[in-house]
């Protein structure tokens, strides 16, 4: 596919490199010129061109509130299932984040040690943190670090300052919140066969 036919912005490769690995491009991200990439996609002219270009390779640019990501056209159900499984772990993480005294939201800056300290001081939070599966870190601090690391990899957080280990919550975090908000929980209706725990809208 010749890029030139689409009159694409020169950052197309960078955009693709980020989004094709399932990551988000957020407007408040600063690492690797993420905010610039966001501006490039957000330019209406560029957006249409990029959309057309990526559609050819069966990717669709999805627009969130101040972030972009790829969705795949005609994605097989098995992939969707995998994604949902991957998402499940975030339910507990977001629950933990939302239960903090200093709630973590878009643009918040924090250090894992702060969260670990708060969890250590608050039994409820500690339990929540300990409950989060997948991680085997021994200390709370390391566990939070792993969470942050995971979220950074998934481009929901950004390690802003390596020295102070300061993270920033990116706009893509909205994506997680939106999904959580769209989860409807049905209570069990006795012995009915159609009982389901979680329904993803």
């Amino acid at each position, binding site marked *: 596919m010749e890029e030139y036919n689409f009159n694409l912005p020169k950052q197309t490769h960078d955009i693709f490199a980020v989004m094709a690995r399932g990551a988000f491009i957020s407007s408040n991200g600063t690492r690797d010129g993420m905010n610039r990439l966001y501006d490039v996609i957000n330019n209406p002219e560029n957006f249409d061109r990029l959309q057309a270009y990526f559609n050819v390779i069966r990717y669709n640019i999805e627009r969130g509130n101040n972030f972009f990501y790829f969705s795949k056209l005609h994605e097989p159900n098995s992939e969707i299932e995998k994604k949902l499984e991957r998402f499940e772990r975030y339910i507990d993480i977001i629950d933990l984040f939302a239960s903090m005294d200093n709630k973590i*939201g878009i643009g918040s800056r924090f250090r894992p040690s702060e969260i670990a300290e708060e969890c250590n001081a608050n039994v409820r939070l500690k339990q929540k943190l300990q409950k989060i599966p997948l991680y085997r870190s021994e200390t709370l601090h390391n566990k939070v670090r792993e969470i942050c690391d995971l979220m950074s990899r998934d481009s929901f957080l950004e390690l802003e300052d390596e020295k102070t280990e300061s993270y920033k919550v990116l706009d893509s975090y909205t994506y997680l919140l939106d999904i959580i908000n769209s989860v409807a929980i049905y209570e069990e209706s006795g012995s009915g066969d159609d009982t389901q725990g979680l329904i993803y809208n």
Partner: protein
Amino acid sequence: MENVRILNRIVEINIANVKYADIELSGNTCFVGTNNFGKTSLQRAILFFYSANSRGLGISASQKPFEEHYFRYENSYLIYEISTEEKPFFVIVYRHNKLVFRFVDAAYNPDYFFNENDEAIKIKEVIAGFDKRGIFISNQIDTFERYRNILYGTETDKQLSKFHILKGNEKYQNIPKSITNVFLSSKSSIDSRFIKDFIANSLTTENSSIKLEQVERQLRQFNEKYSDIETYLKKDSQQLIEFIDKKYDQVHMLKGAQMEMADKLGSSLRYAETQNEAVIKAAKEKEEELEKLADAHEEQKTVLEEKQKDVREEIGYYDRTIRDANKKLKEYKEKNIEQAVEKNAEREKLQVDLNIARREYESLTSNVQNIEMKYSSLIEQLRNDKTAYINKINSRTGEIFNHYNELQLLQKNEFSKKDTELKQKREDALVNLNAEVTAKQIEFNELKAEEKVIRNTRFYETEIKAQETELAELRAINYKNKSERAIKTNLVQTNQKEWENLEQKLKSSLSNQIQKTNNEIIRIKAEIKAIEDKLNVQHDAFYGYLEKNVKDWHTTIGKVVNEELLFRTDLNPTKVEGAVASFYGLNLKLDEVNVVSKTIEEYQFEKNERLAMIRDLEESMNQFQAANNEEKMVAADKFGKQLGELKEDLKVLNYSLELADKREKKLILEIEDWKQRASSEIEESLTGNKQKINLVEEELAILNKKKNNILNDFNTQLDKLKAFNDERLADLKGRQETEINELEVEKKNQVKEYEEKEASLSNEKESNFKEKGVDSKEIKKIDARIKELQEALKEIEQYSQIVSDYLKDKREIFDKLPDLIQKKDEYVKTANDLSAELEEIGRKYNVRRMELNKQKRALEEELIEFNNGINYFTKNFRETPVFNKYADIIERAEPKKTNYSVMDLCTQLLKNDSHFNEEYGAFQRYVNEFAGKFRLDNHFNFIIRNDATQGEYERFAQNLRAFINENKIELSIAETATQIGLVTDSIATKVKELSGQKDKIQHIITLIAEDFKKAEFEESKLIEFIKIRLEDSDNKVYKLLKRIQEFREENGLVYNEGLFNTDFATHKNREISTRAVKLLDQLRTAIKEQEQEEIRLQDLFELRFNIKEGMNETGWTHKIDSIGSTGTDILVKAIIYITLLHVFIKESSHRGSTEFKVHCIIDEVGQISAHYLRELLRFAKNRNIMMINGLPNKSGLEAHYKFTYQFRREENNNVRIFPSIVTEVEA
């Protein structure tokens, strides 16, 4: 000794590991010694003579510095002896804290430095020695710079000016640099980079490079600022700012309201706590007061009622008396008492008449007394019989009458008794009922009075009045605030306008200045171009011809020639041999005429002057812009602060007005509410009252009904009794009358019989009288008269009793009746007065009682409310976080009564807190989101920690508001716009400065190329040619820097406001700015990618060599590493170095100063062949350059040097340097 200036010898005294060495250097010199024996150290010491730069000797950072390694002792000396055309002089280098120099006007002699024990003496002693010997020794030269100035002949001090090795020009620094560079250059391959470095380093100082770190920092700073502003100006950010502003207001308002409420809660609580006892006491007092009031009222009532009773009794008495009197009077009237009284008055007269009649009768009948007597006795007898009979009958009638009367009386008594009993019963029955009715009636009256009182009572008057007052005050304040707001709004507009005008003024002044400066620069550039044109053509023009061929032409032709002619290339001047100095055959005395032509230096000077003017202009432009910005900032500071304060005030006013409006509405509602409550209270009270009234009315009705029933019942009974009585009486009366009538009939018949008998007797008597002659008529008449009088008297007698009674009654009663009526009226009046008084007392009592009850109820309610409030507070509020939040305020509040209950306040606080938390959460989210859009260290300082306190969040909002009010973004934009100008300008200046040296490079390269051409390789044919050429640089960073410089020249200084898409940015400005930003961005990326520290002169160009050695031609290449054997390479390298050195020395020394030689120090030349070495030494010698080389061991090569020194390490680790005895086969 040759008649040239040259470093003749170097002497080391206690230098490094060398105790003493005296090395001659007046010819090619070679040092032979294995590694680490000190060859290089010695070479460095020689280099130091030329460079006098202890840091530029190639000593690595891990090694000891030159000063410490070489000058270990206070008697460590480096001595350089320089031979001159006359006598030699020498330089002493020693350490006096730092390295210092002294020039000595004498040839070196070891005696100067050693004592008799061969020990090196201290510098003081050395100096003293010179003084003693009368040898000139200079003052201490403290700086390397001054030393170099002296050595290279630019020192102005006459005492020192003779101590030079050569006469350098302004570029003399190239000589030590070149010598140093040769020494320090790479030992293996020859890279054009090295040559470039060599040339560049020789031409530039350490500072004449573009430090990319600095540029990168500037770019980063600009880029960061730019990105911050860009982020700030984004729509999302602006939206967030609005949200933050709004939410902050809401949060602030809510917080304020909460605090106010907390204060009220605290006040209410304190008040409740402090007032509890007081209220209980007050309630008790009211209770007592009520009791007292009731007692007093009862007492008063009793007294009045007693009085009323007495009066009533009096009234009853008088009423009865009057009624009885009237009744009697009526009865008397019915009995025609008046006639009876009249007749009774005639009684006396009638009695007298009767007595007269009787005496008359007796006188008439005195003749017929017998007959009279007989008949009189018969008649009398008859009459007596008749009377007896009548009496009998009357007695019987009387008996019957009495009997029946008795019966009737009995009946009447019976009736009366029964009647009385019944009436008594009725009375008894009615007494309680009446008492009850009266009580109810009183109650009814009281209720009516109460209703009246209620209707007249203004409930919640205090509250309503207080609120009305508050409303009035609020309205007054509102009015004041509104006018203040109007004034401040006007002020804001005025200030805004003033600010805008000032900004506009500053902007136009800046653009005018820019325009003016640019025009001026364009003008000067044109002048520079004209000068450059002249300089460019001068070689081929008349000027060049004169320079080459006519000595001192400036003082001859230069005085008369037209400047234009000088630079014409078409004049083809030719020199006429043997011609005398004339002007077209004329001799002119030109001594007094000014020279009009200018030297190249003057042109150069003019050009430089103009360049300096441009720099000055740009500098002044920068200053102007800085001043302009400063003014802008001052204005922004002044107006921004004022506007900020005003806007803040306006906000506060608006907020106050908003609050006031709300309060007003609330107050109006509250007043309405109070009124409603008051009317409800009235209605409620009235409802209770009415209900009571209705109840009492009903009860009264029932009682009345009951009373009526009883009355009816009794009346029926009474009626029946009366009817029975009447019937019985009538029956008795009937029977009485019947019996009496029967007796009367009987009596009448009998009386008739008697009267008939009497008449017959009378007739008989009359007949007898007649018979006896007595006037019977007269007697009859008198008799009739007597009878008549007797009848009349009898009649009178009949009424005598009643008249007597009447008269008695009249005297005793009837005559007093008016008095009685008057008295009764008086009592009635008194009774009415008493009733009124009683009623009034009752009313007053009721009012007071109600009032007291109300007060008591209010106190009780207050008490209940206090207790409920305190309970509620303790149970439901004290443990909540809300209490903790406002604990300070609540606990510090003054006890004060508020319009709100503790419970309401607690509930409201809890409710509001939840609302506040919601709003605050949103506020926090907006702040986080906004701050998160910026870099961690953004220059606006929009940063908030995740665990920031509420205060910090609020300060963030306040600062943001101040930022907006003071329009700091405009300042930041202006600063950034200036910064981009400064950055591009700084880059352009640096690039220009650096590029300015490119001409020098071109010149040097030309000279080198020429020198290569001149090289006498023909003899050996070892090297056919060495060619060198200059090409444009392919350094990406430099290319970008160059583009920025071109951009800068094309567009002038980038002072524009088009950096951001603001209103006043024109399309052209925007385009220019976009390009500038893009270029700077590209440069930054390139710097990052290239990881180069600086752009030096050598990065501005590329050099290519083409060398042909024998059959080998390298072609145009950067790198010369495989021309031939290693020896060839070293040779070529050395040739190039020597060429370079030669060129630089030539360029950097005074034209006349040719009688000097310098050294070229190249360390390892061991691999060069003897043939090549000879060739090389000769090549150097032809260029007045002496070689100093190092060899690892003796190999025969040393035979080609004038001096050869060997190095040996002794047992004490000292190094000994000694001359090797060789035969000089020098070229």
